[in-house]
Every structure is written in C-alpha cells, then in structure tokens.
C-alpha cells in the first residue's frame, strides 16, 4: 500500500457542544509533520474524543483553524479515518465485507477492492478469518478488523480514540506494537488518544498532555526512542516517569512546577 502522511496544523481550535454547555476545550494548538505519531493523554472528560471527532470531520469546530495539508477539514474523508474505542463492526457482514465497506462506499470496482481488502486483512494477520462471521471473533480480533477497515482506505492520518482500552493486556501490547509499526511502514500520521501513560510512551513520537476544564494542551513531550519499544527498557521507563510527572503537575497546576516542566518540554504551537 502506498501512502504518505499529512501536514497537520491546528490553530486556536475551540469547541462547545451548544451555547448552553460549557466550553469543551479552548484554543488548542497542534502542529505535526507528515509521518509523525502524536499521542494525546489526559483525564477523561477533558475533551480528547471531541477533538478527535473534529479532526476526523465528524463534528464541526466552534472556532479556530484545522488544516490538513493546508486544506480546511469540513467532512469525513478517506484521507483521515477514525478508529473508535469499540470495534463497531457490522454483524451482518463477514470480515471481508466489513473491511471492504469503505471502498464499496467509494465505488471501487470489485476486483481491485478484493485485492486491497485481502492485503489489509493480511496486514492485521487475520487471513484465516477472512470469511468468518465477525460475531465469532474475540475482542482483539474484532479490533483488528476495525483497524483493517480503517487502513484499507489508505488514510494519510489515522485517528485512534482509546482503541485498545477494552482489550486484555496481552492483545493490547501486540496491537500497540503492530499499529505503530504499520504506521511507520506506511509513513502515515497517527493521532491517538489514551489515558494510559505506558501506551503513550510506547506509541508516540510526541506525547501531548491535555488538561483542565475547558481542556487545553499543556505540554508537548518529544519521545525519541528506538523501535521496537519494550516496556522494561530503562529508557522507556525513565520517559514514562518523566511523562507521569508532567501529567500529575498538569492535574494540580502550581505555577512554579509548571514553569519547571516547561523548561524541559516544548510548548505547543511554537513549532
């Protein structure tokens, strides 16, 4: 699959669900180069999912600019595809049909569609289940189908909203490694949301910390580690400890600590 990443430019993006609801997040700034993997961590309720839905074109922003390769995002597109926390597969379709449904929507001819679907199914190691009923698959396998369903569109940006949080630890570790390596192999951008600090360290090129109500991006930590990353690696451990410290500081903001943290990390938006 030939794919490449996308240039992301999010400037002063704000959102509220309605004029009566509180501001979900306020003046979010994110910039990323093609092929970069961003992981956003933050406590639940700070607006991470909302942000991702906006980037996917599934929700309109209230204010601000959202440019992907200098084009304003207004609607969903095969160039930026979202994968959700639950697989949400269509139970009346086989694995193959589930994976190919996006191509079907796009009006692909049958033969090319079959080839590309088979390739996507291979990519997530589900060849043996191509014609299975998705209701017969385990949670991890279902999430792999959802991953293939997103990848088959050859997106330049894959948005992931806590995609592994419902899986057992073993499956989660395997998928974390696979998704990162597939993204690197294809050269696409990842923008992933999680509340799992380990996951952020294992998958990110840059970890963005989102905090507050309304939510804001308070820190941007580059994660320069070699692949494949192992949980037990001392460098991974120390990055994790650092990120954990930043995360806790962000939760109870004291001005002094915050300035100290800013000295070691880079504030978003100045890239």
């Amino acid at each position: 699959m030939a794919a490449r990443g996308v240039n992301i430019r999010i400037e002063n993006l704000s959102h509220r669900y309605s004029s009566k609801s509180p501001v979900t997040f306020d003046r979010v700034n994110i910039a990323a180069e093609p092929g970069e993997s961003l992981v956003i961590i933050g406590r639940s309720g700070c607006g991470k999912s909302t942000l991702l839905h906006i980037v996917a074109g599934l929700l309109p922003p209230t204010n601000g600019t959202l440019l992907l390769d200098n084009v304003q995002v207004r609607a969903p597109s095969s160039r930026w595809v979202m994968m959700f926390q639950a697989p949400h597969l269509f139970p009346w379709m086989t694995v193959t049909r589930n994976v190919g449904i996006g191509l079907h929507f796009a009006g692909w001819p049958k033969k090319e569609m079959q080839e590309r679907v088979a390739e996507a199914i291979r990519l997530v190691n589900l060849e043996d289940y191509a014609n299975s009923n998705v209701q017969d698959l385990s949670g991890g396998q279902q999430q792999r189908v959802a991953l293939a369903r997103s990848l088959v569109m050859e997106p330049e940006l894959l948005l992931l909203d806590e995609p592994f949080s419902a899986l057992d630890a073993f499956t989660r570790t395997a998928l974390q490694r696979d998704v990162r390596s597939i993204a690197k192999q294809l050269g696409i951008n990842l923008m992933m949301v999680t509340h799992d600090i380990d996951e952020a360290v294992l998958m990110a090129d840059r970890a963005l910390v989102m905090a507050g109500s309304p939510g804001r991006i308070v820190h941007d930590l580059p994660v320069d580690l070699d692949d494949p990353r192992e949980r037990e690696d001392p460098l991974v451990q120390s990055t994790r400890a650092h990120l954990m410290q930043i995360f806790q500081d962000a939760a109870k903001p004291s001005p002094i600590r915050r300035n100290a943290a800013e000295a070691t990390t880079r504030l978003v938006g100045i890239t």
Partner: protein
Amino acid sequence: MNTNAAHTAVVVDAALSESTRAMKSAGRRMFNWVAGLSILLALWWFGAYLIEINPSTRHFADFGPVPTFQAFPVLWADGTIQSAVSASGYRLGVGLLIAIAVGIPIGILMGRSRTFRELSNSPFQLLRMISPLSWEPIAVIVFLSWNHAIIFLIAIASIWPVAFSTAAGLAKVDPAWFKVSRNLGAKPWHTLTQIILPAIAFDILTGIRAALGVAWIVLVPAEFLGVTSGLGYSIEDARETLSYNHLTAMVLVIGVIGYMLDSTCALAIKRFSWHRGAV
C-alpha cells in the same frame, strides 16, 4: 496405548453422539408435528361422527373429514380452488405490497425523526385500533370497485405492524454504526441500503409476518360481500348452495395456505437475521 489415538477416538465419539443427538431431536420434532396434526384430524372426525349419529344434525354430516377430502378432486377439477386462490392471492399480495411500501418508510421516519414520531404517535395509535373491517363501508363508497376496496382493507390492516416493527427495530440500532459509516464515507443511499435495512431486516420481516397474519384474517370476511371470486366468496357460495363438504374443503385450503405463508415468513426471518440466538 497411544494417547493420541485414544484422544481421536474420543473426539470422533463426541462428534458421532452430537450428530446422533441432532438427528434424534429432528426425528422427535417431525413425529410431534405429524402427531399434532393427527390429533386435530381425529378430533374433527370424532365431532363429525357425533353429528352423524344424532338424527337431528345428520344432514350436516358433510362437514366431516371423509366428505371433505372427497370434495377436493371435484373442486380442483372444476377450477374452484385455483381461481379462488389466485383471486384472493392477488388482493392479498397487492395489499401487502402497498403496506410494505408505505409502512417501511413511515417506520424509518418514526425511528429517525423525533418530531415525526411525536407528531404521528397518537394519530397512528388511534388509526391502528380501528378494526380494519369497520373501514369496509367507507372503502366501498370511496373505491369504485369492491376489488379495490378489499385491497385497501388489507393494506390498512397490515401497514401498522410493518411500520411499528420497523420503528422499533430502528430504535435498537447502535448509533455508532451511523458514525462509523459516515466516517468511512457513506452517502445517505449507502446508509439506507448497507446499514439501516440489513440492521433491521429481522424487525421488518417480523412486522411483515404479523401483517400477513392480520391480512389473512381480514381477507376472508372482506370477500363475503360484493365480490364473486376469492376464498371468502367460495365459502359463502358453498354455504348458500348447502354444499357443506365444499365449504369445509375451502376452509381447509385457507388454513393450509395461511400456514404455508407464515412458515415462509419464518424461514425468511431466520435467513435474514444476524442476531445470535434469535428465532
């Protein structure tokens, strides 16, 4: 002793007993199916026997099974069965098609638009509770032919099960499916044909099955008046000519066809249902 071979033997044993059990349960069901119908036949025969031995009711003896089964070749040869079935089948088919064509969109509107659902709820509940046959005098005035009036009665009777079942199915649809399909570039047409309809096929077909039951019940009395064809007419005709065995034969035809139509629906429901453990 080779444990592998022993293990294989156990597995084969298990598979065998599994298939034997499946065959046994199929055999038991078949036996009960035949036995149930035989009991019905025996009760019918016994009732007819009681009628026959009582001098005051003897002239109704033709209601019994033997004269009835003797009537079938006659009714088939003179085309009574064929023409009654095709006339009734046409009315039923057209009426049901109208109900499906109108009922499914109404159901989808009810399921998808809150305004429409709230607006339509009480009028529809009210209309639904009007016995379909009570429309007959009005239908006869509005429609120029009895044929059309009967089709209208069938349609008005069967539209509600289809619409309400469609709406109920839609209410159970996971909203995430719409988000996922939008995310993957679905256009409204795709959402309808690839998501909504397959998701609620089970509910639509269940509604159609219920509609068929109501329509079949409405059809026969609706044909008692006005028309000179169809199953209802043929019963009425047999009564007027005092050919009681013809009457029971046509009643039997109604039962058998209704049973077959219902079983076909049940099969379709099984075929198009993706719910695990349903049906």
